């Protein structure tokens, strides 16, 4: 016969009631997560929609006046600052005002492209050194340093770029290339005047330096996640470390590295203050060679906002808003393109979580 200890009965009952209370809380928590989750998702989506709508509304007068000409035009002329106003397509604008964003657009794409061309190989090699090439006691502190560099404010990098890097490059590095380039089409672009260190290539390289830590530390983390078994298989086949990295490790995390590069590209496209400091901030022209002064969309917005506010018709601000809209469109396009690339390159990629 089974003996039941009488005291446990009461305890069980107390347990039951407290368990019921706890389950009620659990259900409330459940609904908090479900409803709260949906609401929280709306925050970034709503912010993006709101932002695009506001930019579009602000930019509307500029879009109406310039149309597609905004993308192809090169002038950035605020027009009469003494109150002369004319009407174009029903929009009041200062007399002589004329805006074209082609140099800004070109400058943004050029500097970002240079930054990527510089940063992606450097980052992948850094990640390789941090995971394979260097002994742990050197690699660990070095990895930490790379992450610290990612946190340096861009204004400091811009200052260093304009005071140290730019003059050094213009004086000691650029001439080595520029003076040896023959004056023929295409190659001509790498020759000519190298200026004083403020300009396209310097901006691109500064941006590149700024995005290396992001791409490198992400790539290192990705490399560390690659399972040992396929890498060992490659080594056992007689591949060198470099071949293992190129044929197995890198392809294994290809989509992640592309993601990291896009993250870096996003920062390069939008980076403002450092480029404003090292680009030369010259409006209205596309640099004739690799070294010339120029500006980008982001740098123009920050450098022109003050003076644009003095335009009583609001047309100058409208044009800056349109430039901002253009930058947002480029960022979104870059992300979509990256998704397409990742999807395509993922066809042969390793399934996640597979050894």
């Amino acid at each position, binding site marked *: 016969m089974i003996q039941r200890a009488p005291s446990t009965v009461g305890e069980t009952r107390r347990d039951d009631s407290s368990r019921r209370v706890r389950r009620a809380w659990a259900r409330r928590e459940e609904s908090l997560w479900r409803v709260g989750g949906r609401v929280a998702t709306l925050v970034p989506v709503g912010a993006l929609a709101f932002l695009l709508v506001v930019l579009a509304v602000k930019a509307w007068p500029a879009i109406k006046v310039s149309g597609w000409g905004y993308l192809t035009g090169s002038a950035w002329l605020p027009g009469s600052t003494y109150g002369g106003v004319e009407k174009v397509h029903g929009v009041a604008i200062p007399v002589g005002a004329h805006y074209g964003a082609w140099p800004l657009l070109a400058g943004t794409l050029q500097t970002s492209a240079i930054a990527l061309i510089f940063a992606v190989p450097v980052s992948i090699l850094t990640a390789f050194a941090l995971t394979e090439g260097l002994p742990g006691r050197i690699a660990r502190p070095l990895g930490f340093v790379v992450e610290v560099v990612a946190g340096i404010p861009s204004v400091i990098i811009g200052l260093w770029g304009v005071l140290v890097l730019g003059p050094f490059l213009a004086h000691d590095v650029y001439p080595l290339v520029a003076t040896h380039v023959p004056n023929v089409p295409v190659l001509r672009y790498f020759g000519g005047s190298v200026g004083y260190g403020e300009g396209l290539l310097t901006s691109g390289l500064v941006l590149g330096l700024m995005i290396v830590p992001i791409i490198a530390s992400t790539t290192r983390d990705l490399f560390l996640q690659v399972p040992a078994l396929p890498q*060992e*298989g490659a080594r056992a*086949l*007689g*591949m060198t470390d470099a071949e293992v990295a190129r044929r197995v490790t890198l*392809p294994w995390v290809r989509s992640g590295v592309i993601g990291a590069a896009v993250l870096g590209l996003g920062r390069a496209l939008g980076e403002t203050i450092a480029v404003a400091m090292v680009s030369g901030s010259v409006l209205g022209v596309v640099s004739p060679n690799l070294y010339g002064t120029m500006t980008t969309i982001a740098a123009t917005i920050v450098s022109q906002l003050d003076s644009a506010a003095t335009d009583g018709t609001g047309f100058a601000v409208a044009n800056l808003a349109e430039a901002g809209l253009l930058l947002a469109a480029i960022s979104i396009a870059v992300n979509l393109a990256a998704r397409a690339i990742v999807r395509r390159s993922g066809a042969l990629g390793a399934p996640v979580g597979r*050894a």
Partner: protein
Amino acid sequence: MDEVTRHHDADAHVASVLRTLDPDRDRPADVLAAEHLTVGFGGQGVLRDVTVALPRGTVTAIIGPTGSGKSTFLRTLNRMNDRVRGFERHGDVLLDGESIWSPSHDLLAVRRRVGMLFQRPNPFPMSIRDNVVAGVRAHGIARGKQLDVVAEIRLREVGLWDAVKDRLHGSPYRLSGGQQQLLCLARALAVGPEVLLLDEPTSALDPMSTEAVEALFKTLTPALTLLVVTHNLGQARRLSDATILFYDGELAEHGATAQVFEQPRDPRTARYVQGLVG
């Protein structure tokens, strides 16, 4: 020309013909031999004074309880342990009579000659065809159109050709586990190894795939010398000519497979092969 020289020339000619017929003729009978091999990691001993030779063209099985040093031994033979932190070694491993650590042996060449198949299939993140020729490419054995030929030959050799010929450029990860392991075998064979180290090669496979892979192993000798680590005693009996039992880092027994299983000399072997331990 005097008589002695003519005799000498004739002898040399015969020798060269024989070498062509049997490239292994002038080489040591044992393709791979461990001599007093002691291995440890950071002061922790794993293998103690192992001396064992693998006759060319034979299959040797290594059995023994988990942690007895089987895998460490196997991985030392193609220098996969060299870079493991704290790796220490005394004694030697001879490949065709020469130390695999001798400066005249290139590490990559050693690994080309001593191939390896792992516990679980480990295809590379590239197409099926590129997997097969990955090593061939790395060693510059073939290139261009020849690679397609190599891929077909090796895939036929492992019996995978008909299953994959229509998706050579597809992902290897959509193959079944057994097919993936066969693909890895084709990849290992493609670089033309002399010795193949098999580290529990069927432990992740179902019985049917295991049977297919085992049948294939049998076709590889005597061209290749196989050394297979296995927890599956039946597999050791089915496959091997000789069996080695590792026990606690020591070579407890080494003999013809039938002898090891039926008349073990070491009491530890007797207990292990009867399923009393391990």
